C-alpha cells in the first residue's frame, strides 16, 4: 500500500486537496479535528502533554481507519510529523516557552515511538508537501479565510519555517525519494490537485525504517 500524507503548514490547502482526492474516489483519512474538539492549552507542560496524548489517541484512530482499507493508495490529511512541527513552531513564536515546548516535543516523539513499535500507529510511507513560495499568494489565501493580512504578514516566515522543517524531518525518517514538495502559489484548486497527483506518482514508498526518535 502507498500511504501518502499531505503535510505542510497552515493555509496551503491540505484539507481541500484531501477532499478533492476523496471526490476522485481515492480513500482518504481525515485530519485530527475530525475526531472532536481539542483540549485548550493553558501553557503548562502538564496540559501540553495531555494535548499530546489526545493527538496520539487520534493518530491511533486514524491508523485503525487505515488498517480497514485495502486500497492501493490512501491519502491522509497531515501525519504525526505535524505534532512535532507544531511544537517547533510554538517554540519559535513564543521564545519564553521554548524550554517547555522542547520538553513536550520530546514527550511526543517518545510516545509516538512506543506506539509505532507496538503497531498502534503507522507512519506514512510517502509525504507530499504543498508549499507557498510567493508571499502575495500566501496573503491572498489568508485573506480568503477572513484573517487580517497585517497580523498574518509575519506568519509567512512561520509557514516557510514549518514547510522546511516538515521536508527535513520527512527526508530524515522516510528518505529523500519518498518526500515531494510542490509550490502551489497562484494555482487554482484543480491545478493544485493535478500537481499533487503528479507528485504522488513521483514519490516512492519508503523502504527505510528509521525510528522517529531520530528527530529528538
Amino acid at each position, binding site marked *: 500500500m*502507498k500511504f501518502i500524507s499531505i503535510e505542510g503548514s497552515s493555509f496551503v490547502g491540505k484539507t481541500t486537496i484531501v477532499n478533492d482526492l476523496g471526490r*476522485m*474516489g*481515492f*480513500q482518504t483519512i481525515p485530519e485530527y479535528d475530525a475526531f472532536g474538539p481539542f483540549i485548550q492549552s493553558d501553557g503548562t507542560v502538564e496540559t501540553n502533554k495531555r494535548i499530546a496524548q489526545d493527538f496520539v489517541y487520534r493518530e491511533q484512530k486514524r491508523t485503525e481507519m487505515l488498517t480497514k482499507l485495502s486500497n492501493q*493508495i490512501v491519502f491522509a490529511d497531515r501525519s504525526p510529523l505535524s505534532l512535532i512541527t507544531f511544537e517547533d513552531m510554538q517554540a519559535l513564536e513564543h521564545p519564553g516557552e521554548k524550554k517547555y515546548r522542547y520538553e513536550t516535543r520530546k514527550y511526543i516523539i517518545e510516545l509516538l515511538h512506543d506506539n509505532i513499535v507496538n503497531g498502534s500507529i503507522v507512519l506514512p510511507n510517502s509525504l507530499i508537501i504543498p508549499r507557498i513560495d510567493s508571499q502575495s499568494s500566501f496573503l491572498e489565501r489568508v485573506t480568503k479565510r477572513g484573517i487580517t493580512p497585517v497580523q498574518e504578514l509575519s506568519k509567512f516566515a512561520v509557514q516557510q519555517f514549518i514547510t522546511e522543517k516538515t521536508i527535513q524531518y520527512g527526508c530524515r525518517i522516510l528518505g529523500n525519494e519518498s518526500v515531494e514538495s510542490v509550490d502551489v502559489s497562484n494555482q487554482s484548486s484543480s491545478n493544485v490537485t*493535478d500537481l499533487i*497527483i503528479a507528485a504522488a*506518482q513521483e514519490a516512492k514508498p519508503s523502504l527505510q525504517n528509521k525510528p522517529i526518535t531520530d528527530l529528538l
Partner: protein
Amino acid sequence: MATRYKLLQDHINDYGFSVDKLASYEPVNMSLSVVIPYFNTGKIFQRTLYFLHQSILQYGSEVEVIVIDDGSKINPLNPAWLKNNERLILHEKNKGRTEARNTGIASATNDVIFFMDSDILVEASVIKQHAILHSKAKENNLKSIVISFFEFTNKYDERIDFLSLNASHLQLNDFRLDCIYDASWIGCEEDKAYIGQHLQLIKETNNLRDWRGQYKAWMLPNMVLGGAFSVVKSEIVAINGFDTRFTGYGFTETSAVTRMIAERNNVVIPSLKGGALHIEDEEINLPKSQKDEIFKDKHNFYFNIFLKEEIESKSDEDK
C-alpha cells in the same frame, strides 16, 4: 437504393495510413466532446472520471465532458464528482443508453464525440490517440470512427485505485484482438462453423484496412463496441443519432455505425496504442446469461431486418 447489407458489402475501409506509425504525429484543430451515459453506476464512476481527466490532461487541449444521468434511483450521480466546467444532464426517467447518448449528441458542441461508458477506465493516452486518428483521417478527406480496445476485469481489480493508468498496465483481452470463437457467441446457424477457431480479427484484416463485407462471423460495424469509441459529430447527426429501435443491451452502437459506414462512407480505425479497463459489475450490469438472450434477439433484428432495409446511400444523394 440499396440495402444496408449491400452497401456494407461494397464498403472499402482502407483509410490509407499505418495506425502504428504515428508516434510523432500531432493532431490538428481537433475539438472533442466526451459523452457518458450514467445509470446507477455508483462510486466506480469517480474512478472513470479520474482516469478520463488524466487522459484529457495528457491530450493537453480543452475537452468538453457531458454526463447524462439516465434517471438513476439507486446510485444517482453526485454532481460534486464532476469538475466545474463539466455538464450534467438529468433524465427524470430511465430512457436507456441509446436516448442518453442522443441527449449527449444534442448537447455536444465539438467536432468529434468520444462515447464512453460509465464503467470504463481509460488509459492516459486514449483521448490523444483518438484525436490523432481523426486528424489523420481528416487529412485524407475521410470521416472516421475510432475504436479503442479493452481489458475486461472486475470491480476488485487493484488497478482501479492506481494514480495513473498507462499502456503497460493493461493486458488487453478483447475478442477483436485475439479470441477463440465461443459457442455462446453464435448468432445464427452459419456461425457454428467458427466455434473453436483462433481469430485475430484486427491483425488478419490489416488493422481493418482490408475488411470487405462479412469477415468470419462479423460485419465491420460489429468491431465497434460501445465502451470507448469516437465519431465525427456531423456524421452521427446526419443519421439522426442512435436508432431507438435498439434501446437496451446489444447493437445500439452497431446500428448507428452501420449507417455511418454504409450510408456515409465513414471508415473504422482501430486505436492500437493504449486502451481501457472495462469494469464488469454484475450488481449493476445484466448477468451474462441475460445479456446472451437479449443479444440473440438483437442479432436477429440487426441481420434480418435492419441490414435488409433499403435506403439511399450518400452516393445516391450526390447524384
